């Protein structure tokens, strides 16, 4: 079995050259960030991911987390690894500096997150949820709440969870029913939350649940939901975990993948109500969730990049060792490893080229998120915010959908052994499968894209991004002109489809939502092509420098060419579906299905 090796070269290439680390270093608060620091951080993170987290990935899958008497026990080795993880300070990577975090920008923390996810996605979900809670606190917590919870969450002594989903409220969070009744300086929370990731476990000293619930007098729907902090142990005055709160895990799910990550049914208020503290103002809970959504959704998009990378490395290793058949046209002589077969090459290139495109788009989004957060100029800040709002649903849904396909190709390269658990290839496919579902399904991301992000604003930001793509296509000349032409055609398709969405959105929204997912995939496919064309341009320039890593840059250009020849042509098909495919989606009556 292969072991994970962090793709540092590609990561650093994308960070430094494509996403533009220099621009990030110029932002206020990011002055300390430079290429040398990034290399040191990524280098040490790679070691930790490879040596500590990865060896637990199979163990976690096989053993899973276990529940007995409301106590969840994580798989062997996880607790110790978590301890090591937090002692090494990794939990505080992007955290607020005033509370012990390192305050590193997304363009640094997200690549590190990719490594955690490649090596052990189920483990990584625990710190990832904590960082989600921290993000919500950063924006909406009171000074007292920040003091009380943020240092411990930043160090990882305590972990965090997101309690949104209920049996009747999944994609539609407006249907949340969990109750919050005021009592003195706090609230009594009661109700059932389902699917709560790492909702209960033995790795941290305390668990801080962020819970969506309704006040007794709250209005119906989205404007009647509030956000509460509900700690597993109520903190004592000195900050230590105190009295056990009235919240418990009543069951955990048996699932397709991420077995090590407990997915908990959480029961609040069986003994009269769990003590909860309101975050921000009443009835604004869903709005608050939205402020941290970009952060969380980019995180899941990165899971897609990460698991796809792992599946690729695993398949590549197998392709280099499995001997089967002879080279095309040879009837005698030695049998060869399957990497000699053209179709296996095609599968590997299919994986590799899309992963590199996905990584580039995800890191570009990270850089854009940093600029939206830190840019000193208000207009620039707004512009970057609009771009990131547009890109997030694309990165989340496209990277995860492609990841499922890539992990499936990984199984295919293993032949029969891919279907057998022993090789480990199947785990990546099983783990990947959740990424298109949680944090908003692909359907919900696509709705967001065609609705809030393109339809309502009449395509203004989308067209601005398309104009940037055109600049890249136009600059792909000389040896890269074939790439430029392929990209141009794909951009035409994207622009036409975008125009159709804008034109149709008011008069026939149902038609728009019927083709929202093909439109999102079109956006991702062309966005990926844009990134690969830029990568090829940079590679072309860099390879001429003295001492350049010619092998790396040539590989990049060839990979970009493959993307243009094999992936980008799909854009025309998606466009056709978008502009002409809505009717048949909606034509059948329910009874005709």
């Amino acid at each position: 079995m292969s072991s994970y090796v962090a793709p540092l070269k590609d990561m650093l290439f994308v960070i430094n050259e494509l996403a533009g680390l220099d621009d990030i270093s110029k932002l206020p608060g990011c002055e300390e960030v430079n290429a040398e620091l990034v290399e040191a951080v990524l280098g040490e993170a790679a070691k930790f991911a490879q040596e500590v987290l990865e060896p637990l990935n199979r163990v976690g899958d096989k053993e899973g987390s276990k529940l007995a008497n409301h106590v969840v026990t994580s798989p062997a080795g996880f607790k110790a690894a978590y301890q090591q993880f937090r002692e090494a300070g990794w939990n505080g990577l992007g955290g607020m500096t005033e509370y012990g975090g390192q305050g590193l920008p997304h363009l640094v923390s997200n690549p590190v997150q990719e490594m955690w996810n490649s090596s052990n996605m189920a483990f990584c979900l625990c710190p990832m949820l904590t960082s989600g809670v921290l993000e919500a606190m950063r924006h909406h917590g009171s000074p007292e709440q920040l003091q009380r919870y943020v240092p411990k969450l930043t160090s990882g002594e305590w972990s965090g969870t997101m309690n949104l989903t209920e049996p009747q409220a999944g994609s539609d969070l407006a249907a949340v029913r969990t109750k919050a009744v005021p009592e003195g300086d706090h609230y009594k929370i009661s109700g059932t939350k389902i699917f709560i990731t790492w909702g209960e476990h033995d790795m941290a000293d305390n668990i801080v649940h962020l819970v969506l619930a309704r006040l007794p007098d709250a209005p119906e729907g989205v404007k009647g939901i509030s956000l509460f902090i509900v700690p597993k142990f109520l903190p004592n005055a000195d900050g230590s975990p105190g009295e056990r709160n009235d919240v418990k895990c009543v069951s955990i799910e048996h699932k397709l993948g991420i077995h090590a990550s407990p997915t908990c049914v959480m029961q609040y208020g069986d003994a009269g109500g769990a003590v909860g503290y309101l975050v921000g103002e009443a009835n604004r809970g869903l709005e608050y969730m939205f402020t941290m959504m970009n952060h969380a959704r980019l995180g899941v998009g990165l899971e897609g990049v990460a698991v796809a990378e792992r599946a690729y490395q695993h398949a590549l290793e197998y392709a280099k060792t499995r001997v089967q058949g002879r080279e095309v046209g040879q009837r005698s002589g030695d049998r060869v490893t399957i990497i000699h077969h053209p179709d296996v090459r095609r599968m590997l290139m299919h994986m590799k080229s899309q992963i590199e495109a996905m990584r580039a788009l995800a890191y570009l989004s990270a850089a854009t998120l940093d600029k939206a957060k830190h840019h000193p100029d208000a207009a620039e800040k707004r512009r970057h915010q609009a771009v990131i709002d547009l890109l997030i649903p694309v990165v989340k849904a496209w990277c995860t959908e492609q990841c499922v396909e890539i992990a499936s190709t990984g199984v295919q390269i293993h032949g029969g052994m891919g279907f057998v658990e022993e090789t480990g290839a199947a785990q990546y496919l099983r783990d990947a499968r959740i990424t298109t579902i949680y944090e908003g399904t692909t359907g919900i991301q696509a709705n967001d894209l065609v609705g809030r992000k393109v339809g309502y604003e009449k395509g203004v930001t989308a067209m601005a991004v398309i104009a940037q793509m055109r600049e890249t296509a136009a600059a792909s000349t000389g040896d890269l002109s074939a790439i430029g032409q392929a990209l141009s055609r794909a951009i035409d398709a994207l622009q036409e489809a975008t125009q159709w969405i804008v034109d149709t959105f008011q008069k026939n929204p149902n038609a728009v939502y019927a083709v929202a997912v093909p439109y999102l995939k079109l956006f991702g496919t062309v966005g990926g092509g844009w990134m690969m064309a830029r990568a090829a341009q940079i590679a072309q320039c860099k390879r001429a420098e003295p001492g350049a890593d010619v092998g790396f840059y040539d590989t990049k250009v060839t990979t970009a060419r493959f993307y243009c020849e094999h992936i980008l042509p799909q854009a025309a098909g998606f466009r056709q579906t978008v502009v002409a495919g809505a009717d048949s989606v909606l034509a059948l009556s329910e009874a005709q299905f």
Partner: protein
Amino acid sequence: MKVLVTAKRVIDPYVKVRVKSDGTGVETANVKMTINPFCEIAVEQAVRMKEAGIVTEIVVVSIGPLQCQETIRTAMAMGADRGILVETAEEVQPLAVAKVLKAIVEKEQPRLVIMGKQAIDDDSNQCGQMLAALLGWPQATHISNVTVNGDSAEITREIDGGLEKLTVKVPAVVTADLRLNEPRYVTLPNIMKAKKKPLENIKPDALGVDVKPRLKTLKVEEPAKRSAGVKVADVQELVAKLKNEARVI
């Protein structure tokens, strides 16, 4: 007590090493580099001794191109206090390394020098020994344990027959073997702090040392590919082959 540790920059052990097409050496350009694992153990030992209150200052030295600064930063992220880069583009051979280190030892006056027993690239296993000889200091190589008590150090060495215990007078040069300790994972806050620790850059000339190579590499080539094995029918045949063909027993 002040300690001097060394940190050589070598090809990362995860990387597959390739011989240059012209046979002059191995490919190091654009290859991931890291701190020599035995030097890492040496640094770890110094840091542990500092944490135990025996050592007051750790100075880390690397000799080579400018990029060795990264190696020094790694050692400083582990806990070394300051760094010295002796910058040179020359291929530095063991005797040159020992001479450079001697000059630095004379300047810094450490009570103990801890080095890796060898570097995983050239596997020379000579620098520590040469340095001790040049300084006229005691040496203890391939150590798996060290405790310093005042003017002497109790040492355990790994030798073919087992473990050898000895006492050396300090100042001394010791070289670390694999089982001396297990180096820690560098923590993120310490990576950030390492950026601010002092790092001095000096040239061999300034130390009055000529680092010109004295050995000439004639040719580097890949080891011969292993040919296919043969299946033996039973133990008797195996023993016979080991005796008569392989002549190893």
